[in-house]
């Protein structure tokens, strides 16, 4: 079998391990069903295999390492949605997919079907190192300095079943990018890694620690500026060891690494990591060029060939079709190869559910990936899908194919590109519903010309303080709260996850659900009425401060 483009090719060891793990879990399920295991005993075991019990059913969260799939894997996810779920899947802000209507007794069979295409649900829950996320444009973007996928794969292998890090004080999330433009929210992760070429050409890594959202949003602080490739694993090992040793286990709300870093200060944390490194056997963790090359050899490189007139063909098609042109403007990114382009496919139809895709859409995306992007698909942490290597002269054909299954929405990075967690419609932790308010906002701003006029504006919605919808990082953020059994939404403005990461500022008291959409429309009107030149929403907010927006949000006339 040829190597997959974009992700690591499993070998026999990987596959044998997955089969053994499934057999183990199948035995655990059987013992749960016959009563040998109590729910308290079984719960941590099912969570280690990505299986949650939510409001209406079990939910299975399937890992998509660094967000990259091949078409065979995506097609299988669609088949699982059709056969075992209710014909759809939900792509998450961790680049994973969740199935919301799973039966416990079906789970081993589902895991076997996943394993057939080298997928699993391990470490998508629990207090361990979770799925490592990466730049959705990795290996494709013109602005990229280092392709982060090889190192993301190294981190996946390092962190999978790591014996020391299976029972950390709390969950642990790592993101890696190789672009100067942060597309992974690096500073909102437990560890954020930004790779760049060193003086000798080999990559070096800038490492941030202690970022996070949730109950206590904190922007990660730089721990090291230039970790050499050979010391990457040792450094990460030391960082997590210090957290494992000193992170709080007495209070779940104080257990993340961000609390530890804030408590002792980043300088003290750095000293602790350096002390750990000083007593480690660094040779054991040395990442040699040969080891990196061995991992790299298990990724296929796409053969990027395009006709000389590919760019001209696309330009002419854009001139001839203003609707297509609008989609190209919002939904594409510059590729490193002049004959290719990166296409982002919105899973945010106006009035739809952010991140949801039907099995038919999933299957069609797999077909389109085969036809237009070397069979490779990326899932973004903003709940969209990327085809990374589309020939420019074939982009319009792709767009037409997407339109056939309702996936040609022109709203990436615009107000309709809403990020939302599943919220109280599904989630056992939520206080309020996220999806209905997202649907109302999507419908309110459905007009694509209006969205283009408004420009860059991200709305993020979380149904509880755990912040799976990353509301702190939204240009406009909504946090659902429960007030005496009624849903209210607290508004924040000014958050951003990209370069210049910032935590949104709370505008004021939470608003009733039925007043929230109007309040946001007034925020947008305030911006449109007062912006100058080519200002974005964030530009105008920065220039004017929060007060005009606060007044607009709480205007009662």
């Amino acid at each position, binding site marked *: 079998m040829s190597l997959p483009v974009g992700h690591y090719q499993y070998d026999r060891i990987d596959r044998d391990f997955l089969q053994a793990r499934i057999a183990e879990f199948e035995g655990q399920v059987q013992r749960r069903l016959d*009563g040998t295991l109590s729910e308290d005993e079984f719960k941590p075991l099912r969570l280690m295999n990505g299986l949650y019990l939510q409001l*209406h059913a079990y939910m299975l969260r399937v890992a998509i390492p660094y967000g990259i799939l091949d078409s065979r894997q995506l097609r299988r996810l669609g088949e699982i949605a059709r056969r075992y779920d209710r014909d759809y899947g939900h792509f998450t802000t961790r680049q994973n997919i969740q199935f919301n209507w799973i039966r416990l007794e079906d789970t081993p069979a589902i895991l076997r079907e996943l394993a057939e295409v080298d997928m699993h649900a391990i470490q998508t829950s629990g207090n361990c190192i979770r799925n490592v996320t990466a730049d959705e444009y990795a290996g494709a973007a013109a602005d990229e300095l280092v392709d982060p996928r090889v190192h993301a794969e190294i981190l996946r292998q390092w962190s999978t079943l790591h014996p020391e890090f299976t029972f950390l004080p709390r969950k642990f999330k790592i993101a890696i990018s190789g672009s100067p433009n942060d597309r992974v929210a690096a500073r909102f992760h437990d560890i954020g890694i930004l790779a760049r070429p060193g003086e000798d050409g080999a990559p070096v890594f800038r490492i941030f620690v202690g970022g996070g959202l949730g109950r206590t949003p904190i922007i990660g602080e730089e721990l090291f500026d230039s970790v050499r490739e050979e010391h990457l694993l040792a450094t990460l090992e030391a960082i997590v060891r210090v957290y494992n040793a000193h992170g709080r286990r007495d209070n779940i709300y104080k257990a993340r690494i961000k609390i530890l870093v804030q408590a002792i200060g980043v300088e003290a944390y750095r000293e602790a990591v350096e002390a750990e490194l000083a007593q480690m056997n660094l040779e054991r963790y040395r990442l040699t060029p040969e080891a990196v090359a061995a991992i790299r050899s298990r990724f296929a490189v796409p053969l990027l060939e395009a006709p000389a007139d590919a760019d001209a063909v696309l330009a002419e098609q854009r001139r001839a079709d203003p609707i297509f042109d609008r989609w190209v403007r919002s939904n594409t990114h510059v590729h490193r190869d002049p004959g290719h382009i990166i296409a982002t496919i919105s899973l945010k139809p106006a009035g739809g559910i952010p991140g949801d895709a039907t099995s038919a859409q999933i299957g069609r995306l797999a077909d389109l990936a085969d036809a237009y992007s070397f069979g490779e698909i990326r899932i973004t942490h903003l709940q969209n899908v990327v085809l990374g290597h589309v020939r420019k002269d074939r982009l319009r054909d792709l767009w037409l194919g997407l339109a056939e299954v309702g996936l040609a929405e022109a709203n990436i990075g615009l107000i309709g590109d809403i990020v939302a967690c599943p919220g109280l419609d599904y989630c056992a932790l939520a206080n309020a*519903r996220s999806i209905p308010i997202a*649907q109302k906002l999507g419908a309110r701003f459905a007009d694509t010309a209006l969205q283009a006029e408004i420009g860059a504006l991200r709305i993020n919605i979380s149904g509880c303080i755990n912040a799976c919808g990353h509301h702190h990082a939204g240009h406009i953020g909504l946090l659902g709260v429960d007030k005496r059994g009624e849903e209210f939404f607290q508004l924040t403005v000014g958050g951003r996850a990209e370069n210049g990461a910032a935590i949104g500022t709370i505008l004021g008291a939470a608003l009733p659900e039925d007043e929230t959409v109007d309040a946001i429309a007034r925020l947008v009107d305030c911006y449109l009425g007062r912006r100058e030149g080519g200002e974005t929403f964030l530009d105008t907010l920065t220039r004017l401060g929060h007060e005009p927006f606060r007044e607009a949000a709480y205007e009662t006339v």
Partner: protein
Amino acid sequence: MKRPVRLEPGQKLVLTANRLLDGRTVWWGADGTWDLHIGRASLLDAEDADAVLARVVAEAQRDGVVGVYDTAVQAAVPPEPVTVREKIRAHGPTVHPEFAVETDQ
């Protein structure tokens, strides 16, 4: 220790859980069985609920349910949960009407 339940006038308690096999939300009925429909839930007074809850929890494994607890409802026909969360558990996700759980069966 379980927090004492304070019911408003016109409210009763019902027992709810998730089915072990498929996770579906179920409600404890007067005939001692678990049902998908809240309309068949047994209405309990606060003073009786603890004893019934303890008995039902003890039988959860045999009955194939997990996570048994009580929740307040308006004592109507069918009973209507007081909180948004329990309304959604009773009727299904609000964003997929096709997945709604009928209450009048």
